[in-house]
């Protein structure tokens, strides 16, 4: 490992920040933003190579398991919490311990059930997998109609957990989500942390709302209306989302159920230009922006009783928009143009105590927009104009310092994953605007959707079985 230490003056905060830029294994470098950036802000990701545990997917042959294995392997890879080790060549590399060689020969000629029993018996050549750099080994087998996912702790030399699940038939709408939930259980069992495999991203393309699974599969039209839509926003439970719809030059807010597609207009909206809805964490309140002759200001409405419109800001000569609740529901981050250009502000959820949130240099720092408060409450992601294009930044809520995450192309509209370490955003780094996902811990960037014109992404919370099912 070669590590380059640099001292960089952080112009935004005015304080000196020590940034550790460490080179990562070359095969990981391809999609990272590693170039230095103008205006005194440097990439803030601290790379920590080698700290991720290795996980080896055990090769298996068996009907119906290939897709489950492939989906789980990709989910664990996309979690960015493991070095997923793939063994080339299948059985030729499948190295069982001497004591397990009989079991393997039986399994290959015998029933699937026996194969599952062999796996759970823990008969693996643990020292060998350890030598390959694996901390965990994952075995996906089938026993009758049950899929068994066995997580081996290679270091401890035993089975950490065996998860049994009856998967829906491949091709049905819940098949992939059921496997994603298995992946998240594996992650939980291995690291004690919930995963993000069973999540989806809503976004807008050609004026319609679409959804896509976090692994880039199952692209689906969600819009139940032909009118032009913008700004989808999830409710905390993932049961429904809010969005804005253009109607004869006005903007109306709607709530739409994920399961049924049923739409309900939000009371009092639609007579002006109402936009950028955001649910409070308890789902009782919807905050939004309303543009009138006075300018744009923030309002809330009680969703439970469909009443009680409340005005939070009185801008007069400035605009206030794009609300985002803190996960405890106590504060609202938002955009205000009171300094001249739009910047990130924060206030109490009742509209009091309005103050600057993300520091900026007056006359130097460009417009800042589209804040999204992380689910762990510690960060607010937003985008900022840097030298005429947009880049994704993250504000540390506690220290009120900002760091720039991207530098290649135009990058905008970040949205947090439930794990508060991944962000989906829009980037034209490949030549056209599409959705990408960045892991803040490793700096790894992957495309989510290879289609032009996708924008305004909104990452779902973790979706339980009930909310992810579709009719």
């Amino acid at each position: 490992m070669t590590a380059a230490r640099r001292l960089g003056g952080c112009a935004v905060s005015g304080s000196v920040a020590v940034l550790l830029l460490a080179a990562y294994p070359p095969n990981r470098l391809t999609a990272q933003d590693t170039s230095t950036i103008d205006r005194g802000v440097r990439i803030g990701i601290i790379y920590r190579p080698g700290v991720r545990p290795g996980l080896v997917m055990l090769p298996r042959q068996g009907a119906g398991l290939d897709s489950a294995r492939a989906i789980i392997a990709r989910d664990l890879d996309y979690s960015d919490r493991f070095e997923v080790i793939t063994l080339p060549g299948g059985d030729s590399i499948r190295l069982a311990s001497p004591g397990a060689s009989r079991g393997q020969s039986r399994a290959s000629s015998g029933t699937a059930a026996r194969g599952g029993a062999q796996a759970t018996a823990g008969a693996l050549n643990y020292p060998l997998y350890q030598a390959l750099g694996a901390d965990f080994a994952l075995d996906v087998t089938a026993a009758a109609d049950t899929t068994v996912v066995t997580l081996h702790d290679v270091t401890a030399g035993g089975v950490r957990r065996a998860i049994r699940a009856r998967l829906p038939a491949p091709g049905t709408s819940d098949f992939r989500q059921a496997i994603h939930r298995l992946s998240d259980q594996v992650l939980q069992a291995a690291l004690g942390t919930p995963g993000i495999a069973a999540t989806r991203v809503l976004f807008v393309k050609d004026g319609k709302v679409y959804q896509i699974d976090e692994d880039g599969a199952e692209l689906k039209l969600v819009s139940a209306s032909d009118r032009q839509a913008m700004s989808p926003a999830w409710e905390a439970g993932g049961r429904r989302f809010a969005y804005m719809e253009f109607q004869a030059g006005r903007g109306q807010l709607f709530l739409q159920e994920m399961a049924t597609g049923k739409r309900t207009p939000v009371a009092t909206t639609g007579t002006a230009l109402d936009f950028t809805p955001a649910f409070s964490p308890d789902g009782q309140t919807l905050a939004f922006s309303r543009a009138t002759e006075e300018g744009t200001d923030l309002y809330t409405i009680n969703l439970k009783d469909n009443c009680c419109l409340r005005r939070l800001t009185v801008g007069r000569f400035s605009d206030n928009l794009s609300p985002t609740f803190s996960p405890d529901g106590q504060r609202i981050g938002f955009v205000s143009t009171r300094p001249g250009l739009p910047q990130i502000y924060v206030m109490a959820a009742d509209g009091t105590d309005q103050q600057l949130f993300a520091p900026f240099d007056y006359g130097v720092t460009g417009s800042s927009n589209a804040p999204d408060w992380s689910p762990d409450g510690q960060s607010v992601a937003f985008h900022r104009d840097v030298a005429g294009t947009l880049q994704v930044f993250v504000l540390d809520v506690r220290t009120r310092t900002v760091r720039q995450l991207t530098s290649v192309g135009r990058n905008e509209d970040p949205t947090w994953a439930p794990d508060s370490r991944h962000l989906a955003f829009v980037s034209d780094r490949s030549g056209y605007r599409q959705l990408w996902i960045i892991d803040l811990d490793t700096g790894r960037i992957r495309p989510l959707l290879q289609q032009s014109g996708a924008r305004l992404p909104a990452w779902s919370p973790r979706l339980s079985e009930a909310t992810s099912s579709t009719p």
Partner: protein
Amino acid sequence: MKPVSLLLVIGLAAAVVAGACAKNPPPPTTPQPNADSAAAAERARQDSAAAAQAEAERRAREEAERVARQREADSLAALSRAGEEVRSVLATMIHFDYDKASIRPDDMATLDQKVAILQANPNLRIRISGHCDERGSDEYNLALGNRRAQAAKQYLVSHGIDASRIETQSFGEERPLVDGHDETAWSQNRRDEFEIISGGDALRRP
């Protein structure tokens, strides 16, 4: 008098014919009274004179109507020419600098023309829609487009136009006028559009 006497002759001839007809069995639907022929002739004469007068009046009326129609058509054409011109001045867009909502000095003359038109046509009501280019933030552009529409409205209001005659709306960057990803396209897309809501049927020149 000559046409009248000629008609009289025709009327008498008609009376003779009528007298001759009276000898025949009367048609069942119009029973002809067995009247004195002189009285019949007198009635026919009176009827004919009235008919002639009506005909003359009708012709005169038609001629007058034709002239009126022609005059009306001529004035309508003129009005419509004026209307089109006024309409086109009214629809002239104004443009903005990047991320700005202030009226540019070169657009003030355009807005002054609109002020004059609105003053000359008191029933005219208009809608201003603000638009942005694709460079800024998608959602912020809705607020910026609103500011741009309001800026034009405030200019018109400050020059004496009643605020109730002007509606505003914003489309952000959602309705670009020109496709393209360079300053040429962007500068055209950062605009206010003006359209007539009502009172635009017979627009007068200022």
